[in-house]
């Protein structure tokens, strides 16, 4: 009551009073502060996203090119057995090719001095390439064949400017002597940068310049196939049952609660499940894409179920009623009408679930898919690695070259995720019907 009395006693406020104006201004300033705070927070968050992508691109793009040296390999008749080409001494041919790089040196150890510049694994590949070329075209014997060999990782990094010339000699892995030799190769125009196809065609290797993602890509593809085969039908079946047929009882309630909980269980717990149940109890092979795919399927299942239910819900009741009206059974309504109409939504959800499964690492580590494998897995029972686990292994490797290769592998992974999500968005925008 006291308020009322004091109000009554007051004159009408003078809005032009500077004190009132000041208070009002201060009160309104709060809004612009909130607004500013929000904009700053979003800017920082998006800036961090840009920093994340930018730093990975700047580190990783270097690994998409590889420095190579062109060498001329004389196919001398001395080592090639024309009668029986398979028996030729291809190793000596490759060594001779390296020797031509440094013709002035007359000692017998001359090719040894290039050992640190050229990749050892690359020389093995050269040996194979010469063998293939000469067997395909025996007329090459007596001439010389030009092949390119990857530089070893320290020199690849040197050529890309990661290792600097002005670093003290004892701080880098290459000697001044070797750099001088390398400069000689540059002066002869033998050094060039080419697109790093080996990154996609080679299996893993201890030598960064030879290491590729093929094994991981193959393993991931297999695991995702297994994951899709298991989770797609089971997910759709579950969703249709819960959405269209299930009565409201304790079993349905239990199922719904379980699905929601599974969606929030940490991924590493699924890895423990795979280890304890699939590997130790059922005795499935360790490190196999089969087990990886099964674990990923259990993780993807809630995503697919939830997406499918949403897509089924979005089909208008008039469709169901129309079909019922002309005599379709509930099952026919679903399989003939509702499901086809919901398919784009289901596919979108499935692709997004698969993309999440592709980036999943922790459960695969626990079931042993962090295999070092130079060979590609032949079947889902073979020991294999996957793309994210291979990234993790490269990350753990000490060689300098693996830093940029890890980032390059991440770029490949992000590229796949981008493609999958773009497909999902395309399906959603083009095929999904609006009612």
């Amino acid at each position, binding site marked *: 009551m006291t308020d009322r009395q004091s109000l009554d006693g007051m004159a009408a406020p003078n809005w032009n009073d500077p004190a009132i104006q000041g208070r009002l201004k201060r*009160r309104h300033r709060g809004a612009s502060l*909130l607004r500013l705070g929000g904009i700053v927070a*979003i800017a920082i968050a998006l800036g961090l996203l840009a920093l994340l992508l930018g730093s990975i691109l700047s580190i990783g793009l270097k690994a998409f090119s590889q420095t190579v040296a062109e060498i001329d390999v004389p196919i001398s008749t001395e080592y090639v057995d024309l009668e029986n080409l398979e028996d030729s001494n291809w190793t000596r041919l490759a060594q001779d090719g390296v020797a031509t790089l440094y013709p002035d040196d007359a000692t017998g150890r001359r090719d040894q001095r290039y050992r640190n510049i050229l990749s050892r694994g690359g020389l093995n590949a050269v040996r194979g390439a010469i063998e293939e070329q000469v067997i395909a075209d025996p007329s090459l014997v007596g001439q010389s064949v030009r092949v390119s060999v990857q530089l070893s990782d320290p020199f690849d990094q040197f050529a890309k400017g990661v290792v600097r010339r002005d670093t003290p000699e004892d701080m880098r892995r290459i000697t001044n002597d070797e750099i001088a030799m390398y400069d000689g190769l540059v002066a002869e125009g033998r050094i060039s940068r080419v697109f790093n196809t080996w990154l996609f065609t080679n299996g893993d290797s201890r030598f960064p310049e030879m290491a590729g993602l093929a094994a991981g890509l193959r393993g991931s593809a297999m695991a995702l196939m297994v994951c899709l085969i298991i989770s797609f039908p089971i997910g759709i079946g579950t969703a249709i049952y819960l959405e269209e047929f299930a009565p409201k009882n304790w079993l349905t309630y239990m*199922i719904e609660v379980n699905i929601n909980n599974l969606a929030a269980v940490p991924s590493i717990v699924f890895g*423990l499940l795979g280890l*304890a149940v699939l590997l130790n109890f059922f005795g499935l092979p360790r490190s196999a894409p089969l087990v990886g795919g099964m674990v990923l399927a259990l993780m993807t299942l809630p995503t697919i179920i939830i997406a499918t239910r949403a897509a089924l819900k979005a089909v208008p009741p008039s469709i169901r009623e129309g079909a019922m009206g002309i005599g379709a059974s509930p099952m026919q309504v679903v399989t003939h009408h509702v499901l086809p109409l919901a398919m784009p939504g289901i596919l979108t959800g499935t692709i997004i679930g698969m993309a999440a499964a592709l980036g999943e690492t922790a459960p695969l580590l626990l079931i042993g898919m962090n295999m070092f494998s130079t060979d590609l897995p032949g079947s889902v029972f073979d020991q294999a690695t996957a793309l994210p686990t291979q990234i993790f292994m490269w990350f753990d490797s000490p060689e300098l070259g693996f830093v940029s290769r890890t980032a390059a592998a*991440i770029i490949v992974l992000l590229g796949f995720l981008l493609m999958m999500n773009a497909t999902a968005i395309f399906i959603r925008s083009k095929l999904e019907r609006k009612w």
Partner: protein
Amino acid sequence: MGQRVPSVSKKSTISAGNKAARLGLHLAVIAVVMAAGLGIAMTLLGFWPALTVASLAVAGAGAGYWRIRNARAAATERAHSLVHHHTAYVAMWTGLPAFVLLLLWVALQGPIIDQLSISALPSEVLDGLSSDQISLLLSEIKNLAAGVRFGEPADYMVAAAERYGAWMHIAELAKIAVIAAIGLLGLSYSRSRITVAFRARQGVERIIIGLMIACSTIAIFTTIGIIGSLIFEALRFFQHVPVTEFLFGTRWEPQVAIRSDQVASLGAFGAVPVFLGTILISGIAIFVASVLGLPAAIYLSEFASTRVRGFVKPMLEILAGVPTIVYGFFAVLVIAPAIRNVFGNMLGLDTAPGSALAAGLVMGIMIIPFVSSLSDDAIGAVPQALKDGATALGATKSETVLQVVLPAALPGIAGGMLLAVSRAIGETMIVVMAAGIFASLTINPLDSVTTVTVQIVTLLIGDSEFDSPKTLSAFGLGLFLFVFTLMLNVMALRIVQKYRESYD
């Protein structure tokens, strides 16, 4: 389809040719799917068993088809169901029981024969062997049976290998015989039921519903599998290490367990430092995520135009879609050196290489979308009437937001935060890459700490021995992780649901 249906466009004309083409397309798709399924089944379940099941199903389909055709030709009244319902009915009755039996058989054959092989060994061989050594023995038997010999194996081993080979051979033959018998049984039963009056469509639909129910129980079985395996292995762990020591001990040195001959061969399994490290890193993450996520949510829901919102929201959600291994790499290569630079070189503080701050910061970036999107939803759910009321009383925009909207949205925001905490605690790869391995009892964010998930991964990576407290302790931690995140999720859902009820 004798009549021509008036058509709107050429495409929608239903003519006999179109119908045949569509039928052909359907059949082609079904054939491709079935061939792919058969191929997959042959790889996963074995060539002959899969072929047996497939041929049984085809035979069933054929039997049903001929039976109903003849019945229809002979009968005077109309059939209740279409031909393909009867066909599918017999095919399902023939193929499905055989297929389910095959799945069970494949899953259980290995473990059962392993058990038999072990129990058939002379008892003096098994005396005093740990389960680890037994599994080694078993793989030796398998190698011998496969013809791989190392040195001169003992007589009982050769006998065991022969037994093993014989049993495997018998099991393979019995498998095919049993599934064929079951399939034929199903065929003869279902075929005998086919008449024109038989309600085959209902039969088929009941089977399909049954399959769907089976699919949906997988979620339950997965949960049972998780809880069961975690509790089972954790109990084995607690036989070695008392629960109280695990929960309240302050020393975590599981790696010592490798040297079994030492006095301290058990290692130390006091998980308090591990829990503390988890809380420290998650705390930093939640702090970062709420400092950035909450203002972002307020801005997006109260200030931003529809266009800005439509652009910014998906951009922020990209942060949650980036694989965690990418964040781990980012933390180690960009954030950790920056932190060492700022705190170590510029401020002169002691900064560990795997500092909690770097891991927590990056994890915070990852969970920004959880906080911002869920808070955005909660703020959006505040009824317009509340805001209008505040405005009518003369509150400015900021007063409305801070004193009316946020308090009203608080339960929803808190629920979102709890979900984010649960996500942070369960997050693995960022901390595996950016945090430390060794547990230290500290709350200094510049020190290196370890987390529950890091310990699980380091304890289990590349380790197949399954008996030592060292590997089993990972399941103890896993059980803790599962229970804790489950509680957080249930709590979050409760809060969110309760809140929703009060305004709808």
